[in-house]
């Protein structure tokens, strides 16, 4: 037996220590070669009577982070290719068989007749955790690096190697469903409390503890293979089962709007599996796993939320020629809500921050924001008083620009006014000189024009944060016409430092995210004016996959801001650039009724003191007409919301504002929550097929107007049959 991925050491007690350590990889992953070798190891262990038991551990920092997602991402494509080559039936049989491969290998471990103990030395995720669930004993290192979890749902998959069967056999069904739905990782103590591991041991004693269990007569039988095994929650068709299942199905819909087939598959696997013996239950799970692996949701989510996001986080867009910067001290000018948030995330990442505002009180108020955020983490037990002191110690609040001396990068987040920004740039550069990269956090002003105020425009760049800064994971980096590679590299290094995900876009009105979001909100406004019931607008938007309805969102960002944007757009681009129905609505709300949004307690919603917000009853009257809800095509409303954003994303790519579909996709999900199950704005188009998308746009143009008109690029691609990923990412396309 020659093994590449595992090392076997048999001790004098006849216990084999199997150390998983894949050559040339930073982490262990479950791939074909691993499964082949595991099969061989099981054969070997069963055949050799001298072997008393097995301890499985990892030679890397992490135990195993699960399946090879690059391989999984191409599931749908592999299947399509197999159908072409071997026909539907043969391809399907083969695919389903392959989908159950890991599950069968793990089951062989479980039924090998020899005791297997998992010594979980680090992170065990997905299939990496499922293999340990098939071991008869699990001991985890008492280490901050160790955790267990089944995060598959986050990328459109589910734990298909026994996870949906062994978890609900270890804990009550409601807890099991919760654990499987959320995909959260658990620290060792919590894992023990949840009955997911048997023991927690000091790092150095991990393997010894596992061996001790075997030597102590550890039984090579899983609880569910015992004759008298009882399911933790009893039978499904029981009074308790009736209390669990109908609400579980309802809560699935409530949380997902039935947009996530993998989450639904978990429910089905658990429901059907709990009524079966484990071997048949695992078979049923594999069948669902094969179905989900072929789903376009899995392909899209793995690509955008795992692969592309990882690539962007690692600096896919960073100019390779630029040496790595060493950002130790960051200047933040403007201690308002955005600046204060930027200061917080920067200090959290360990850098020194100089937070400057026009007077000390304003600067201190900005720093107090960090105090509030870290204090809340301390209160929740997520940080210590020492962490708090250190973090606050890294922020110097000042009214003196001279304190910016020595900063490696300055981010300006002052009031959105060209004059104020220009003055800020001048004052800062007066202290710093022209060579320190200067970034503007603007959401509306073109970077190229702001850069003219800089001594060296090549060192001027836009870094657009989203609010609230500590929660929103996306950062838009905006290249002015003259922005140079060093500024870009510095900005990307900064975003990496604060552990956010960057997209790099070229300078244009609204950049990328706000253009799409603006279209989304406008679609809600126009529906309202058509007479669509307000609640339907909000609910259908969420059903389409958006995190908040357009009217709620508008209340949050403020309707008077929308009014100013509409007026500015009209002034700059002319009367035809705005929709008169939308203008009329916003004018009525802002000018006539002073309904500005949440900030003054009245917008599209009313915000009663201490109560839940409710749609303002006067809204329906603003349209002057009301449609009968039973005659409204809900599917079309959903399409309007998504297409309005996606077609704008396509325009940004056609214009060269966004140059990489991975950035459009990841940016849309992280920046404005675009229906994650689609993989993002551009994957939504690719997923429908560009030709289908174009024809959908044409239908919507005919019914609702030119705002849905597809750019020439889309028509060209529809003709050639190309996808965005083929055209813009080339070989990387899946």
């Amino acid at each position, binding site marked *: 037996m020659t093994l590449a991925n595992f090392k076997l050491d048999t001790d004098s007690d006849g216990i084999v220590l199997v150390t998983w350590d894949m050559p040339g990889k930073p982490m262990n992953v479950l791939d074909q070669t691993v499964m082949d070798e595991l099969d061989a190891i099981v054969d070997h262990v069963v055949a050799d009577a001298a072997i008393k038991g097995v301890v499985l551990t990892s030679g890397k920092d992490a135990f195993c982070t699960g399946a090879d997602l690059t391989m999984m991402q191409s599931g749908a494509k592999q299947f399509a290719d197999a159908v072409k080559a071997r026909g539907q039936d043969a391809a399907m049989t083969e695919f389903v068989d392959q989908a159950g491969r890991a599950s069968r290998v793990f089951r062989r471990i479980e039924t090998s007749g020899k005791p297997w103990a998992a010594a979980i030395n680090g992170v065990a995720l997905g299939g990496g955790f499922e293999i340990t669930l098939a071991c008869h004993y699990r001991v985890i290192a008492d280490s901050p690096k160790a955790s267990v979890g089944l995060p598959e749902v986050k990328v459109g998959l589910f734990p298909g190697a026994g996870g949906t069967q062994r978890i609900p056999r270890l804990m009550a069904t409601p807890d099991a469903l919760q654990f499987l739905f959320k995909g959260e990782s658990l620290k060792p103590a919590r894992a023990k409390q949840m009955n997911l591991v048997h023991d927690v041991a000091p790092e150095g004693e991990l393997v010894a503890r596992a061996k001790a269990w075997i030597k102590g007569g550890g039984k090579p039988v899983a609880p569910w293979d015992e004759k008298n095994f009882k399911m933790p929650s009893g039978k*499904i*068709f029981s009074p308790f*089962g*009736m209390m669990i*299942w*109908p*609400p*579980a*199905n*309802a*809560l*699935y*819909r*409530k949380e997902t*709007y*039935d947009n996530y087939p993998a989450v*639904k598959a978990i*429910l*089905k696997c658990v*429901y059907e599996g709990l009524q079966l013996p484990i071997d048949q239950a695992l078979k049923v799970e594999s069948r669902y796993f094969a179905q989900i692996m072929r789903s376009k949701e899995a392909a899209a989510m793995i690509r955008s939320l795992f692969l592309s996001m990882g690539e962007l986080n690692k600096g896919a867009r960073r100019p390779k020629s630029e040496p790595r910067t060493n950002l130790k001290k960051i200047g933040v000018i403007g201690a308002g809500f955005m600046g204060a948030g930027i200061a917080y995330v920067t200090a959290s990442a360990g850098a020194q921050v100089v937070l400057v505002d026009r007077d000390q009180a304003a600067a201190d108020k900005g720093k107090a924001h960090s105090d509030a955020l870290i204090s809340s983490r301390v209160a929740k037990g997520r940080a210590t008083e020492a962490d708090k002191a250190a973090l606050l110690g890294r922020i110097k609040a000042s009214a003196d620009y001279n304190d910016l001396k020595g900063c490696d990068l300055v981010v300006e987040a002052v009031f959105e006014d060209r004059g104020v920004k220009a003055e800020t740039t001048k004052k800062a550069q007066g202290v710093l000189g022209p060579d320190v990269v200067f970034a503007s956090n603007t959401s509306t002003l073109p970077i190229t024009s702001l850069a003219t105020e800089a001594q060296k425009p090549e060192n001027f760049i836009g870094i657009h944060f989203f609010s609230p800064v500590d929660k929103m994971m996306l950062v838009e980096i905006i290249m002015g016409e003259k922005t140079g590679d060093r500024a870009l590299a510095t900005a990307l290094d900064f975003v990496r430092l604060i552990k956010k995900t960057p997209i790099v876009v070229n300078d244009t009105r609204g950049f990328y995210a706000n253009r799409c979001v603006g279209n989304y909100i406008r679609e809600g406004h126009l529906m309202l004016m058509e007479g669509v*019931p*307000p*609640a*339907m607008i*909000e*609910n*259908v938007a969420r*059903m389409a996959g958006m995190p908040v309805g357009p009217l709620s969102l508008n209340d949050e960002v403020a309707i008077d801001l929308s009014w100013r944007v509409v007026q500015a757009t009209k002034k700059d681009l002319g009367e035809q650039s705005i929709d008169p129905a939308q203008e009329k609505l916003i004018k009525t709300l802002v000018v006539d009724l002073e309904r500005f949004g949440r900030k003054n307690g009245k917008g599209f919603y009313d915000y009663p003191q201490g109560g839940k917000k*409710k*749609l303002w009853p006067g809204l329906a009257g603003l349209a002057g007409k009301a449609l009968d*809800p039973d005659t*409204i095509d*809900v599917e079309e409303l959903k399409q309007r919301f998504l297409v309005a954003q996606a077609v704008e994303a396509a325009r940004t790519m056609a214009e060269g504002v966004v140059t990489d579909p991975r950035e459009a996709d990841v940016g849309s999900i992280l920046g404005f929550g675009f229906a994650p199950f689609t993989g993002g704005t551009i994957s939504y188009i690719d997923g429908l097929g560009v030709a289908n998308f174009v024809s959908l746009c044409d239908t919507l143009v005919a019914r609702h107007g030119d705002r849905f008109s597809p750019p020439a690029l889309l028509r060209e691609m529809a003709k050639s049959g190309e996808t965005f990923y083929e055209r813009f990412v080339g070989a990387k396309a899946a």
Partner: protein
Amino acid sequence: MPEAYIYDAVRTPRGRGKDDGSLHEVTTLQLAAGALRAIKDRSNLDTHLIDDVILGCVDTVGESGSDIARASALAAGLGEHVPGVQINRFCASGLDAVNFASAQVMSGQHEMAIGGGVESMSRVGMGAEGGAWPVDPSIAISAYFMPQGVSADLIATKYGFSRDDVDAYAVESQKRAAASWQEDRFRKSVVPVRDINGVTILDRDEHMRPSADMQSLAALKPSFVMMGEQGGFDAVAIQRYPEIEAINHVHHAGNSSGIVDGAAAVLIGSAEGGRKAGLKPRAKIRAFCNIGSEPAIMLTGPVDVTRKLLARAGMSIRDIDLFEVNEAFASVVLRFNQAFDLDPARVNPCGGAIAMGHPLGATGAMLISTALDELERTGKSTALITLCIGAGMGTATIIERV
């Protein structure tokens, strides 16, 4: 095609469906057997004329399982030659049993059959049977399953019935039921439940609360708030009807059908069968049909099935003198009246299940007797009986006096 005639219709009084209810001590078997025995005894019927016994029963587990119709027929002494079959279409089971019996007669295959139903809700319990629809994710999610109370509240929300509307309806149901009992309008049909010695256990519907008024009902808390909010079902309702911002929970024990025990039986036969038995028909089954309706809102089936049935029978809503629309929840009847723009006086004139109770599998057959007695009392001709049904269905039957 032979006509199907109604020769007799009986029902038990309805006992409160709790462990202090009068009929709690009576087994499902004895409840059903009592009704069947009354059919036999009242007409001094030669049971060789009975070709089948069809009983509706919804929760068919434990004592009500394993074909309660055959067991009850035997226990009633109909003789071993009389077969039995139990059917389940949820709340319309009893009416469907009558329709199935009628279909056997109309098809010419049977001459006489008994259709009826039984439910001991106090002994077996609602939902005891389980089932895929509320539980199995493969159907519960796509069918937008929600408990009926949430669906009833959804109807009220969507069609604009306020708490006052549904409470006022309930008060009226109580008043009508009380008046009907006072005037002894049910005397032709109600047969007391007796013990083994012949002593009467119950001879009146005992769920009624004639003193109920707007004030006393207003004190009741809505029943389905918790389920709707914490069980996630309000969200399910809203995703199916997204024009709704929030579900207005208006139903409570006082304006929903009562949980009760009871049984009913209807003797159906052809003209030939009646002649052989020496019986005079009271009415004929003019037409009946079933429909599937939108399963999430679930309880609007009576509207859909009535439209379908009237069209099939070539009738208009004005041809119907009297409507019996099961009072599963107040909003169900209010929606029915709204959809057909009906004078409420023509609908459930003797009160309904809000006052007297809804013994699931039996109610449909009970409504036949209620309608027929009232047609005879008032000298009217035609009645339409319909019930809303779980999972979104409707059953309706038109009877006509002969």
